[in-house]
C-alpha cells in the first residue's frame, strides 16, 4: 500500500524568508509525486510533479520540490515566501503499478506573516 506523511500540520514563516513544506512517501517501485495547493473555498490547484529525470522540479508561482529517493522525500520549497502563498498544501503519490489513484497526505497549512 502507498502512503504519504506530511509531518507538520502548520508551517509559519515571515514574508521574504525561504519556506519548506515536508513530505515523505512510501510506495512500491518508483513513484510519481505531486504537490497541490488549496486556497480558501477553492479546489486543489496543481503546483508541480516529479515523474523522472532531474531531482529538482520547478512549478507554478516560484515553487520547487526536490525528489530524494534514498530518504523517500519530496519537500516543497520556495526561496522567498509571499503572504499570498498562505494556503493548504497537499503532497500526493502515485505508484507506477498501482493505477492512477493518488494517495494524499493530510495537508500542511502554510501561514506567511507580513
Amino acid at each position, binding site marked *: 500500500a502507498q502512503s*504519504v506523511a506530511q509531518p507538520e500540520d502548520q508551517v509559519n514563516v515571515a514574508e521574504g524568508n525561504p519556506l519548506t513544506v515536508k513530505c515523505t512517501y512510501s510506495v512500491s517501485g518508483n513513484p*510519481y509525486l*505531486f504537490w*497541490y495547493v488549496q486556497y480558501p*473555498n*477553492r*479546489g*486543489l*490547484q*496543481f503546483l508541480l*510533479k516529479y*515523474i523522472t529525470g532531474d531531482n529538482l522540479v520547478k512549478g507554478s508561482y516560484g515553487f520547487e520540490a526536490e525528489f530524494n529517493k534514498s530518504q523517500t522525500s519530496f519537500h516543497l520549497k520556495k526561496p522567498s515566501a509571499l503572504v499570498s502563498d498562505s494556503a493548504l498544501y*497537499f503532497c*500526493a503519490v*502515485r505508484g507506477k503499478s498501482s*493505477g*492512477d*489513484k*493518488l*494517495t*494524499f*497526505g*493530510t*495537508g500542511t497549512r502554510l501561514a506567511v506573516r507580513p
Partner: protein
Amino acid sequence: EAGVTQFPSHSVIEKGQTVTLRCDPISGHDNLYWYRRVMGKEIKFLLHFVKESKQDESGMPNNRFLAERTGGTYSTLKVQPAELEDSGVYFCASSLAGYPYEQYFGPGTRLTVT
C-alpha cells in the same frame, strides 16, 4: 478553457436521505476521479472512470455509494441512504489519458449529513 465543475457547492441533508453530486470534467479528459476529504483528514480516493467504464472502484466505502458516468462525459455520485459519517468534501478530478498527467480538481461539494 473551463475547469472541472461540481454541483452543488454545498448540500445539507438529514440522515437517511439521498443526495446526488455532479461533476463535469474538462472537455477531452477521458479520466475522471472522485475523492473525499473527511474533516481534517487526508483526501481519499473513491473511484476512477475511463470514459464511461469504472476502472478502479476500490475506494468506494460501501454499497450506499453509486457512481455513474453517462456517455463518458459528466459523472454523478449518489449516496443513498446518507449516514452521518458520509459528511465531508467530495472532490472530482479529471485528466488526459496515458502518460502520468496531473489531475485537475474541481472546487468540491461540501456534504453535511445531520
